[in-house]
């Protein structure tokens, strides 16, 4: 799967309150890519990631998924792309506190109607080294473990691309490195496309391609 952002701009607010979070960005991502989007807070990097992830539509420009223009897509079609082809990892993990690690990973599979989900979810948790914590609730896990559950959840429906928004932002250096190494290994071994948003240059430099964003523009 290939996602192309072509001269994409995104504005928030209206009239005098309107501001452009992203201006004229052209960038692509596909399987096997490892891209870091780097920039200070408020530079527009998360906005770019959200448009990549079909969570948002641009104000101007085009977004194409496998050459199909998504501006014509319905909510259902956008949801299906997110569900089947894109995995999300967030800085605050965003796990459901009332569900076990296994149930959190199972959730996207249930949405996709995957059969035998439990075995696959357990395998995904095994991949991130949490085979022994299937029945643990998020509150019983460390930050690094929770982020690994989030990665397993992102991998649940075997996506083509994983979009990670500051995935190491809430972790200490050593744990953050582990998480990053995991994403790199998945990119290398499974040809998974990885797009990381970060303000940390050290993290950004691990990527094959770096995109610098400043004041909404790619510099």
């Amino acid at each position, binding site marked *: 799967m290939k996602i192309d952002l072509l001269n994409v701009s995104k504005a928030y607010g209206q009239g005098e309150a309107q501001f452009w979070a992203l201006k004229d960005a052209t960038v692509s991502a596909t399987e096997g890519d490892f891209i870091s989007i780097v920039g200070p807070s408020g530079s527009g990097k998360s906005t770019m990631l*959200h448009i990549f*992830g079909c*969570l*948002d539509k641009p104000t101007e420009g085009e977004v194409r998924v496998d050459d199909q223009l998504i501006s014509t897509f319905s*909510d*259902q079609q956008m*949801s*299906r*792309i*997110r*569900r*089947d082809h894109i995995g*999300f990892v*967030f800085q*605050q993990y*965003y796990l*459901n*506190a*009332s*569900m076990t690690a296994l*149930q959190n990973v199972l*959730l*996207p599979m*249930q*949405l*996709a109607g995957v059969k035998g989900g439990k075995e696959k979810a357990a395998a995904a948790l095994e991949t991130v080294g949490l085979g022994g914590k299937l029945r643990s609730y998020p509150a019983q896990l460390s930050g690094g473990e929770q982020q690994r559950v989030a990665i397993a*959840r992102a991998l649940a*429906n075997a996506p083509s691309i994983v979009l990670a928004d500051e995935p190491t932002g809430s972790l200490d250096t050593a744990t953050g490195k582990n998480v990053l190494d995991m994403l790199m290994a998945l990119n290398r071994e499974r040809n998974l496309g990885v797009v990381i948003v970060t303000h940390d240059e050290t993290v950004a430099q691990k990527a094959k391609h770096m995109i610098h964003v400043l004041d909404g523009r790619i510099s």
Partner: protein
Amino acid sequence: MSWIIFANARKRKVRVAMTVGGIAIGVATLFALLSLSAGIENALDREISGMGAHILLLPEGCPYELTLALMQGSDAFEHIPAELLPDIRAVDNVALAVPVVVGKAKVNGQLSSVYGTTQEILQVRQWGIDALEGAVIGSDVAEKLGLAVGDIVTISLYTSVELPITHVLDRTYGRDDTFVFVALSVAQQVLGLADRLSAVLIRTEVVTESTRTQYTLARMSDIQAVPPSDIFERLMELFASIKQTLILITGIAIVAGVMTTMNTMTMAVFERKKEIGILRALGSTKFNVFKLFVTESLLLSLVGGVVGLIAGYVATLFLPKTSGFGLEATPQFSPIYVVICLIVAILVGVASSLYPAMSAARTQPIKTLREL
């Protein structure tokens, strides 16, 4: 999807319990109301048809109050002069005229209903005994006072008499179970109602001619003649209007329940914005989110419905058995009431979840994620 709902419910136990409780109260009230109403209707039917009369002769006054007093075994303080009895018996088509006098008196020190009548009562009541001698007592009286055949019972009000118990009637599940039957003259003497009657039960020779006979009897002074079926219909009409009012009140309580559940669900949507945002990011469609909230509400309502049915059933068993008409009414349980209550619970679930579910479905994942 159900495990997602159960996982969320586990996290919000108090809120879930309150929602289920609110629906359960409404359903329990409705179930109890329906069961008790049916029980009262049955009791009225049983008592009036159980009189065994084609025509009921009553003193002047409100026929419904007088009939209820007669069924309850209370003196209505309005009476028919006993001297009219030969004239009544002489009316064409009257096969049987059974004089009755009722009132409360102390039976072995405890207040009970005394029913004075003649041997003719045995032709209209199916008691399976040969003669009304001494005191014939209902099964409840026997149980309450610990009496058996052969015991001597003391009945007193204006005067006191001692009578042997000759029969304990089989249980009829009607008011007869609560009466002490004695000879007319004995009851008149004890109750201070000499030469007076509470009512006369009339059986006609030709039932199809009963209306004509009723008009003839009604022309006699100091009495009114009414067919028990008319009394039954009017009492049922009266009861129907009471029932309608109660159903309306229950309906208002259920609407209040809908509003409360809607409020709970709306608050739940606000509280779960993060969860909804993540669900949407993971690929959940607007319809998936809508379905999740409606299903959750439906499940809670169904659980509330079942809990309400059980609570309503138990409550009717413990509620006083005496209805507003002073009749002993056994609640009537019917599968149709269960179905009605569950349908009401489902409607409550759907009605209360539509707005919150639509609001949840409208949640923009990007907006939520930005706010997190």
